């Protein structure tokens, strides 16, 4: 396949973007890809990691009055929240490629962080080691997460969002397996 840019060299780099289920792709030769990268033109494909991961593109739009309602809206109180501990804002979160200001930010921007975490992580609850001397509280956290997921499942089924419900159902099953295996202390590799 020839490079979409120079239409001369063999394309070796495929850049593919999937957003809202729609996929766009462009084939480039190594030389054109390098040039485009240097000139920052790959960004012209609309690829900003923080925005993709955290849906902040939509956040920005949500902040502008009069624009069309996005399908995933971040609550206004989060979009305008300021961390009481460090003064971080959702906008700074976006500018700094998805970095937070302090541990407290996880609470301040909880809906934002949770959305991001769900997109990039394999689960929503920590199953690894705990601070030494912290005691065995892992199972408690897992039970709380299990209850939350069960509520979420009911809600999704009620709204007839079956695809999302299937994901949640799998998470519940995985969590139950972990709990049965007595996991949460980093020893949960039994299947």
């Amino acid at each position, binding site marked *: 396949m020839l490079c979409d840019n120079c239409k001369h060299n063999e394309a070796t780099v495929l850049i593919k973007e999937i957003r809202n289920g729609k996929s766009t792709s462009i084939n480039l030769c190594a030389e054109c890809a390098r040039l485009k990268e240097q000139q920052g033109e790959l960004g012209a494909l609309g690829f900003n990691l923080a925005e993709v991961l955290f849906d902040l593109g939509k956040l920005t739009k949500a902040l502008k009055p009069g624009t069309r309602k996005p399908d995933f809206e971040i609550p206004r109180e989060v979009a305008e929240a300021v961390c009481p501990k460090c003064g971080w804002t959702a906008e700074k979160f976006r500018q700094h490629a998805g970095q937070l200001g302090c541990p407290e930010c996880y609470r301040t921007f909880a809906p934002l962080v949770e959305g991001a975490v769900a997109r990039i992580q394999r689960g929503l*609850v920590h199953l690894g080691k705990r601070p030494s001397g912290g005691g065995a509280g892992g199972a408690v956290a897992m039970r709380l997460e299990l209850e939350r997921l069960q509520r979420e499942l009911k809600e999704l089924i009620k709204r007839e969002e079956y695809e999302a419900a299937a994901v949640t159902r799998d998470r519940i099953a995985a969590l139950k397996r972990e709990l049965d295996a007595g996991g949460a202390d980093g*020893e949960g590799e039994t299947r």
Partner: protein
Amino acid sequence: MMGAKIEELFRNPAGILSSEAPGGDIAVSSRVRLARNPEGRLFPRRASDDERREFVGEVTAALPELKHLGGASALVFDPEQLDSIDREVLLERYLASREFNARPEGALLAVRPDERVSLMVNEDDALRIQCLRPGLQLDEAWEEASAFDDELGSVFKYAFDERLGFLTADPTNVGTGMRASVMLHLPGLVLTGQIASAVAAVNKLNIAVRGLYGEGSENLGNMYQVSNQSTLGESEKQIIARLGAVVSQLVEREENTRKLLMERDQHSMLDVIGRSYGVLKHSHRLSSEEALKCLSGVRLGVDMRLFKSLDVERINTIFMAISPAHLQKRAGKELDQSERDVCRAAFCREHLN
């Protein structure tokens, strides 16, 4: 605070160098990094220089107690006291990151003299534990990182959430805070054009593959770093088992490919290796790019037991020694690119016997 001198690192071989590395021909090195932050403090990027310095002071006071860093024998670097070449040396030895070098104010790096355990203070997270091992030793690196983590956790109370685990500046690290990685030498997969499909397949498993040199497209030296992408929702051991399984598959595929290449096209294979050796042995000007490419070829020959007097440790040593900052450190002065190419060629001629 008096910092250590970079030269002290050169007394011992670097952390990834060893002749007795398990699986050390295709898997070059293994690394486990843990991100931690003390409770009640702002993340380093958000903290003021004064706050960062205050925390560096707390870590410095605790250092003599930290056995995993070698206690009093730990090499402690204050990046503000280092020049740019020294900082680049740390990067080339995998002890510091670009992010760390970009903000030297109120930061600290402590390294055990064998370089297998180190601690970056005030990188993106306040504490970044690193364990580096030669060859394929993910479990060993994790065990040691975890033990060091326990030791450090007895000094600092970590920011930890019951549900989200260890809280990190970047939510992509939250939970275990662990990034485990293995560096693989995959010339067979590259030569036969299988690498793109292998990378794509691995990515689907939530495992990241990056070329070691050059951002994105071009990879030099056929070196690939394979690491976990997700840090939450699995225990550290599960993550490492998953990563280990992917690494084993890549290693197996590389081995099979090499065998196949030797069976089907022995002369082309030997030609690549022989020419690589010839260039390294007889050049008087060597760019980084050409040197890494040829080292990959010679390394392949070493793996196939074609060189009696060369071993993987020697290749690894040359690999590091010919990187730009190491060359300049060795010369004792700044060198421009053309001068580096001459020094690089001289080093290779001298050390390939």
